[in-house]
């Protein structure tokens, strides 16, 4: 399910960062196709599936996967979960995160929820998302789909479905840029000062 990818040498710099594209729009699309395929394979007969995008990076991706699932098998409901209030770093003296809304337009009991996020890194976001989800009810099962797994886990959390694995160093930043226009989708790695 995806392999380790060496970052390519396309670079763009601003005065603080070097930024290089590691997945262009075509590769993002094919990664999403592969993710969808893997979910379909595992849940071929299931009518209990729901996708829940972790705000904000995971929500657009959840909708992209849902479109593909709808074309391949059947429509799957999509929810959004905001984890700002569940973070474990709220008292580190950092700026207060913006709090978005959590909308789960389906009942949780009996559901298999696939959490969707853009980048799996330390695992703390997913831990917070699990706590937030379970505060809304008791799903039958929770699985995790991510576009990028960049390693460096700080908690025992693993994804069930991975688009691509990236070999990164800890001080690099991986940004998934997906928006209204899929032809502009890309994943970039930034080095340099965090801002």
């Amino acid at each position: 399910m995806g392999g380790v990818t060496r970052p390519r040498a396309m670079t763009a710099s601003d005065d603080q960062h070097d930024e290089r594209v590691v997945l262009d729009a075509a590769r993002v699309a094919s990664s999403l196709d592969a993710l969808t395929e893997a979910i379909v394979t595992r849940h071929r007969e299931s009518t209990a599936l729901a996708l829940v995008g972790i705000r904000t990076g995971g929500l657009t991706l959840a909708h992209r996967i849902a479109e593909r699932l709808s074309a391949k098998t059947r429509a799957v409901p999509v929810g959004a979960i905001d984890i700002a209030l569940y973070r474990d770093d709220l008292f580190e003296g950092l700026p207060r995160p913006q709090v978005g809304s959590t909308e789960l337009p389906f009942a949780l009991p009996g559901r298999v929820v696939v959490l969707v996020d853009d980048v799996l890194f330390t695992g703390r976001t997913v831990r917070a998302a699990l706590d937030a989800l379970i505060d809304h009810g008791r799903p039958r099962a929770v699985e995790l789909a991510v576009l990028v797994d960049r390693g460096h886990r700080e908690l025992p959390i693993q994804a069930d479905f991975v688009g691509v694995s990236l070999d990164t160093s800890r001080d690099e930043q991986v940004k998934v840029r997906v928006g209204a226009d899929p032809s502009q989708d890309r994943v970039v790695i930034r080095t340099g000062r965090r801002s």
Partner: protein
Amino acid sequence: MSKGMRHFPHRHLLGIEGLSAEEITQLLDLGESFLEIGERPIKKVPTLRGRTVINLFLEASTRTRTSFEIAAKRLSADAVNVSGSGSSTSKGETLLDTARNLAAMRPDVVVIRHHASGAAEFVSRHIDAAVVNAGDGTHEHPTQALLDASTIRHHKGTIGGLEIAIVGDIEHSRVARSNLYALTRLGANVRLCAPFTMMPRGIESMAGEHRSRVSTHHRLESALDGADVVMMLRIQRERMGDGPGRFPTNREYSRRFGLSPRTLEHARPDAIVMHPGPINRGVEMDPSVADSGRSVVLEQVTRGVALRMAVLYLLGAAGPIPSDSSDAP
């Protein structure tokens, strides 16, 4: 995660006077996010787990104190209520000693309501915790203005350009003052309405650069003419002290300044009716108006909990605000 991270550059919430329009809007937006928690079966998030919020209510209040208590508990904080009667203040302890004694128990937030204007700021200078003003004398009641603005914005889409009438004992009203700051800053025109005996002279100047948005009225009909929002204030006999009354009888006040179906007709047909509560039915507001579809009083209460959660969320962290803005890991 640089997007959406922000500093709220205030350690305390003592009033609306010190907030910019942008900061007020930030608080209103944040309040929206907390509404959903009150709709869940389990109305709790772990955000302020283990933090201590002390409600120091040295002036009578049930609804504001309950609202803050629920807000703190929904954030998983430990909420402790200290009220006026039965507290050490009734034994003659000064506010300073009360504040210092509480500080020695290391609260994270102190929410204070007091009969003296300036009490909240006074406490903030003598305590390490974040201080939220829940009403100090006739000075300010910032969370009330925030929940009022939030309710107005929800019904009218925007606050800028609205005509908002605030009717009642303006002189003794901290609700009127906080709303005056908030609503003019957000671009609304505010009509203050009261008998001559209850309208401070020159109150328009409180709005500073926005004073042209403020008008004063001594007739209810002119204040309501074409208004989008009608906010009625409680007649506060307890705040008027002894001596000659400010008006002859409740009945005369209610005839001249009370909101009835007839006087409400002067406002726009889609005008909403607001009141900070508790309502003196039959005095400042006719029961039929209070119970009508135009009244958004109960929604104010619901939004009050959400806005107070937003304030506690922003202020409830111990520790300094950093001087640089860096991402979280």
